[in-house]
């Protein structure tokens, strides 16, 4: 009996040892960071900002590297020009963009991923803008961090506004899952927000950073993007009468900051000259997976055996009429396009065959982009060349365009264009052009100067009639050249005129499914987004 008592005493002890307490049910995160233990000091503030920059090189699930700056944004921006085309067939979702394909609709995946990725980046920037001011740290650096975040936020909005027009203005980080659906702001409001953020940022950001901080947004970067935003809002009717003049003034301020054209055009893009005085701001890529560029795979010749991983896919290549139209002396032709692949002791030439784009089994079907291609990258997403998003060549041509719009083709405007042409080793622009012809000449110069640098569709927006005629003329030229074409060229031969709806891309349909307040752009009604104009 005594034994039994002891056993029960033991059981009772066991029971009391596991008595009720609150700590038992408290969750303490161990393998992840939560807001409760973050945003506390300068290191956290810098860390939050770093992740906002990281949107450009890597993305969160469900998006992949290719879904934003790593591919899809490029394709949306540079495909719908006469500069580049695709090896793929017309019905392929990639080719659709460049062929103004009738089946291109608001459900195109690239629209969705770019839209989603941009807002993901905006939320990261918003988190910095919201949380950093409350952190106890060096106040100068604190203000700079917020200013950098505003620059990043503007970069995303710049792309969004250029692609879609007015978009919802999300200016605070998301804290709760419930909220009123956010309708689209007008294009005017969107550009005004971009201009406000960049004005704020430019007032605080330094002209340059210490060497170890190279790659951060500077005053010059903020001003350049601000000036481009004025130009874009003015030319697309989303601004007011003063925007052209503001663009001129702002570009001229950039001119005072010490940037110059680099004598070696090709070096700006191949990773060998990343701190060129021409580069105002670039996306920083290194040969580390997730921190590098992602474009070589899409640019380089198909199944070229020297490319790492799954082989390149040659999803961009030059359109022959454009390629053939370079001035014979233009150094930008070789700086932009690769005609012979030299790598690791191997030489792989290509040739146009039988008309436009000839396919050889293991070669390319046409010249492929050279800009940003890194044949020595160890893996996808680990390409070294920085992406020069803002550079002085663009500033000069944009300023010429803005001056022409305010005062006509002045000698100052001519000098700007000729400065660019001189670097390209080609003669000056024909003198005495009228305002309209000068404008179109500047746009054409931009095609040669800035090909494959994510300007194409934004330029188209500012001069749609010209851009449309370029593409339609290109289609006709291809038709004349064509004997045994690829199907993509056949589609381009389609005699249909490019519809006015192409002035803007459609809002991605899935965005509307998740936000009932979104209205579609004109001509793209899909039955799911609210009709255009509502």
């Amino acid at each position: 009996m005594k034994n039994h008592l002891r056993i029960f005493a033991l059981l009772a002890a066991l029971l009391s040892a596991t008595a009720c307490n609150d700590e038992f049910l408290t969750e303490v995160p161990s393998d992840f960071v939560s807001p409760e233990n973050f945003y506390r000091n300068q290191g956290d503030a810098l860390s939050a900002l770093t992740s906002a920059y990281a949107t450009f090189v890597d993305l969160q699930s469900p998006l992949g590297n290719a879904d934003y700056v790593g591919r899809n944004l490029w394709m949306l921006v540079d495909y719908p020009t006469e500069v580049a085309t695709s090896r793929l067939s017309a019905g392929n979702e990639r080719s659709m963009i460049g062929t103004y394909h009738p089946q291109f609709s608001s459900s195109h995946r690239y629209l969705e991923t770019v839209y989603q990725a941009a807002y993901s980046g905006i939320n990261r920037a918003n988190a910095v803008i919201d949380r950093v001011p409350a952190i106890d740290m060096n106040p100068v650096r604190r203000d700079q961090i917020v200013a950098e975040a505003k620059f990043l936020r503007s970069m995303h909005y710049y792309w969004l506004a250029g692609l879609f027009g007015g978009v919802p203005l999300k200016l605070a980080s998301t804290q709760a899952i419930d909220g009123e659906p956010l309708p689209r702001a007008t294009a005017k409001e969107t550009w005004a927000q971009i201009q406000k953020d960049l004005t704020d940022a430019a007032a605080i950001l330094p002209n340059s950073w210490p060497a170890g901080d190279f790659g951060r947004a500077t005053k010059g970067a903020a001003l350049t993007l601000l000036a481009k935003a004025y130009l874009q809002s003015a030319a697309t009717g989303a601004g007011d009468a003063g925007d052209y003049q503001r663009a001129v003034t702002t570009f001229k301020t950039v001119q005072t900051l010490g940037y110059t054209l680099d004598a070696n055009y090709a070096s700006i893009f191949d990773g060998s000259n990343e701190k060129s005085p021409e580069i105002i701001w670039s996306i920083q890529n290194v040969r580390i997976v997730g921190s590098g560029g992602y474009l070589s795979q899409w640019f380089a010749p198909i199944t070229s055996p020297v490319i790492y991983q799954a082989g390149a896919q040659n999803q961009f290549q030059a359109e022959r009429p454009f390629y053939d139209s370079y001035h014979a002396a233009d150094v930008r032709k070789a700086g932009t396009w690769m005609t012979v692949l030299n790598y690791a002791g191997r030489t792989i030439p290509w040739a146009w065959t039988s008309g436009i784009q000839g396919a050889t089994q293991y070669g390319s079907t046409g010249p492929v982009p050279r800009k940003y291609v890194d044949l020595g990258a160890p893996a996808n997403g680990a390409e070294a060349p920085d992406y020069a998003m803002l550079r002085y060549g663009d500033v000069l041509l944009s300023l010429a365009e803005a001056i022409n719009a305010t005062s006509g083709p002045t000698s100052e405007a001519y000098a700007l264009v000729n400065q660019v042409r001189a670097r390209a080793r080609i003669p000056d622009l024909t003198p005495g052009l009228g305002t309209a012809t000068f404008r179109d000449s500047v746009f054409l110069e931009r095609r040669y100067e800035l090909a494959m640098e994510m300007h194409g569709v934004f330029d188209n927006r500012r001069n749609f009639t010209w851009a449309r005629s370029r593409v339609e003329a290109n289609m006709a030229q291809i038709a004349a050249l064509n004997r045994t074409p690829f199907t993509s060229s056949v589609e381009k031969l389609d005699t249909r005129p490019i519809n006015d709806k192409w002035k803007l891309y459609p809002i991605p349909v899935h965005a509307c499914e998740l936000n009932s307040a979104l209205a579609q752009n004109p001509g793209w009604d899909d039955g799911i987004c609210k009709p255009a104009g509502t």
Partner: protein
Amino acid sequence: MKMAKSLCLLALLLVAGAGAAQAQTGRITGTVVDSQTTRPLIGTRVTVVGTTLAGQSDSDGRFAIGNVPAGAQQLRFQRIGFAPALRSVTVGADLTATLTVELRAQAVELTPVVAVGYGTQLRRDVTGAISTVSTEALENAPISTIDQLLQGTSPGVQVTTASSAPGGAVSIRVRGTSSITGNAEPLYVIDGFPIENDIEGSSVGNGGRDRTTPSNPLVTLNPSDIESISILKDASATAIYGARGANGVVIISTKQGRGTKPQFSFDSYIGVQNIAKTYDLLNSAEYIDYANEFAQNSSVPYTPFPDAVKAQILASGVDTDWQDEIFRSAGVRNAQISVRGATSTGSPTKYSLSFGRFDQEGIVVGSGLRRTSGRVNLDQSFGDRIQIGASVSASQARSKSVPTAGQQNANAGAVSGALQYVPILPVLRPDGTYSYLNTDLNFYDTRLDGAPTPNPVSLAREVSDSLSDTRIFGNLFAQGDVIRDLKLRVGLGVDYADRWRNTYFPRTTLRGSLTNGAAIRATGVTSSWVNENTLNYNRAFGSQSFDVLAGYTRQRTDVDGGTATNTQFVSDITGYFDIGAGTQEGGPTVSSRRSTQTLESYLARLNYSLLDRYLLTLTYRADGSSRFASDKKWGSFPSAAVGWRLSDEPFMRRFTAINELKLRASLGVVGNPSIRPYQSLARLNDQGYSFNGTPFSGYYPVAVGNPFLTWESTRQFDGGIDLGLWERINFTADYYTKRTTDLLLEIDLPFESGFESALANRGSVENRGIELGLDTDVIRRRGKGGFRWHANMNFARNRNEVLSLGGPESIFAELITTDFNLPGTIIQVGKPIGQFFGFKSAGVIRDSAAAAAVTYKNFGGNAFKPGDMLVVDVNGDGLITLTDRTDIGDPTPDFTYGLTNTFSWRKLELTGLLQGSSGGKVLNVNRIRTESSPRVNISRARFTDRWTPANPGGTYPRIGENPNQVGTNNFTDNLLEDGSYLRLRSLTLSLGLPSSLLNRTGAAKARFYVTGTNLFTSTDYTGYDPDVSGQSVGNTNRGIDIGAYPLARTITTGLNFTY
């Protein structure tokens, strides 16, 4: 919280007494003995039918009941482990009637005791809906994992195969799917230890093995160790498991020691498996014709295989049957030895020991499973008041996996690859390397656009993909009587599972060749302990009996895991064993994870019975879970059930045919806590960026928190009837409605939020259905060895309906596969969960007249052409657009059924299990490619019955580019197939060896059997197996077949000896 604390101090027990006076009475005395041993049986409950009178046999088997009304009376004798018996006796006034009763020992499935949560209950006293699985099924069929036991044997338990690979996952649904995103697998309670079978959560990280089917976490449990399985289905039965009860509870008890002398047994079987069905695909000559026709129908016609090339290919004799190359005839072997017994002193020790080994090759080359398991169950009594016990089992399951399911492109598995690879490619090129569809097909013409699908044979032969699951499971308990009839039980259980999966892709594979070898090592260690303390008071007062349970339990589970991957190996020799040998730039990629979850609970149950006829069960559990958000830690789960045993009412006595008639009804609330740990918290993820070439780390918000996140709550009503006739027919019927609210939904957030989605409690779903079970001896000849035909039938029908999604009318499920961008399934208010979502088709357009008759335009404004699949303009806007996608089918079956027939005669027994499912649709994604390109092989039916101008009646659209014309990545309902099937799941013929033979071997019992598994399936499904839930075991993407591991047909012979 306060409420819970006060519960901590909860006092129990309301006791009421009642008495009754009688007149004209007599007395009954007697003895109960075991019919085999003629030993007296203690503890037999003896009741006078139709009265409140009862008694219990003592250690000499004697019982006595007084005050029995004079006249003819029926006595019922019940004891655990013995068949119940009824005896008639005539009682004279003031006289004593005496009788001796022999009870026949019998297998557990017929015992009237069922395992309920935290205890057992007499079947006749059960008020809830509980199914038990016959242990006969356990003993007689060669089965590798326990879930196979549940298939087709219990009504309302739907078992779906996620992968037929050895050790592949099986998904179980009890009474439908009551959750959309949450884990809908039942709770398993193994020897009292609750285990949430979170298949996805417990699998090791996939570490870049895209979309692999998770392995089965129950694979380590040796089915031969199981004594009984109970499935708790309604709220009354499951509420004792509170927040974890919503998906049903499967209670598994392992074999305990019994008897007196040691009983040794030896079981062994050996079998061979073959693929049950293959696709009929084109051969080389047909494929070439097909590809040429496809090319000719392109917008720019071409001929990839001109006659000369065709002749050359055919002359070379290459005509690869890729299915043949990856499937094989595969063996399966099992051996098990065990000993059970007890020492028969005053404080007996009961023991049960077993050791088993199971070895199965898979029918896909390179796959297989090997399990080694051992178990010790011990039980020691100290006198008659104290008992301690322990059970320990250790097992290891190792499987070799071949990438099989998931995708069709670069991440395709062997099966998907075998269906895509064209017959004109050899397995190996002349130089000994594996052929590659992409380059080798493009060699003929780049416009063929060969898919980047890896060579299936290289996947099967070359990839090393090993999984290991080592599990140690221990239980310790002590119980004793505190005072008379009040038992205290303290139990401590530990479950330790160590899982890893190591994979190496050598250079001979596509993936390995691209990176000079690729290795992945993933580990996951789950350790869990539970402490359960229960007080049980069990007493009868006259005509009333009380069984009161109160308890307090705590459980904690820690999961640690890590993944390492590396590439650029100097050679393939060391594979994944030396992962450091990789020279990947930046070093190996390494990650690790850790999580903890805790659960604290108070539970109470009252079983009350009045006059043995009026039954009441009240259950309450309060669960506090760490996984719930800070404001919602505690939930309470009550239930009530009543039962009325009509058969014991005096007015029923004249219906002698009815030996049991019980009406049951229950109502209660249970929960599903399938929030992963920490999901209520906001979190940040790491993502770096470089400045001046130097990488910096950064953190960005990746998930928005939800401080209100809590359990899904299911309110269930169940009404049932149990009917027993002539002591040989048992019929059970249940009707239930289950309404689940606060569904955990991963709601898609607007893109503008910057987040993809967030978890919230939204929406509700309802399941309602009926379950019928019939268990009968159709023929039972008298005498030992007489002919017997026993049949067990079950039927279940469940209706699932989404009632609300908390706002949106529909949400898309995750992508079926990332090879297709658009979602293939949808969750829609008013419809069952996981409807297929796509375009409706209306047959192939015969001719230009039929095309002209179509009043609307195809995708992109094009006109329909002859040979196109006619897509239905659902919204009638004159144009096919994405808005014409609609729900096109339901993967959940209308009803499921099972039928087990056992014929026995003398020592011969034939058992067959027929099992079926009717009305569910299957999306055969394997066929999707065939609509778009000549780069993959297609089925012969698709080719021979295609539309051509000469064959306008063809049921398949024309061969050529995108004949559905519904844009990229969409599909029409012509890929949906009827997944109904009727399957002879197993057929066993067994023969007990005659005693003359036995005497020579010294065995007490010996049996020899032959079993055929999956011998026959009747279905219209064209793929390998309609019983598939694709690559996913989730709730929304069911009925999807993407290169799923095919079903095997197995013939097994086995032997078991008992000494």
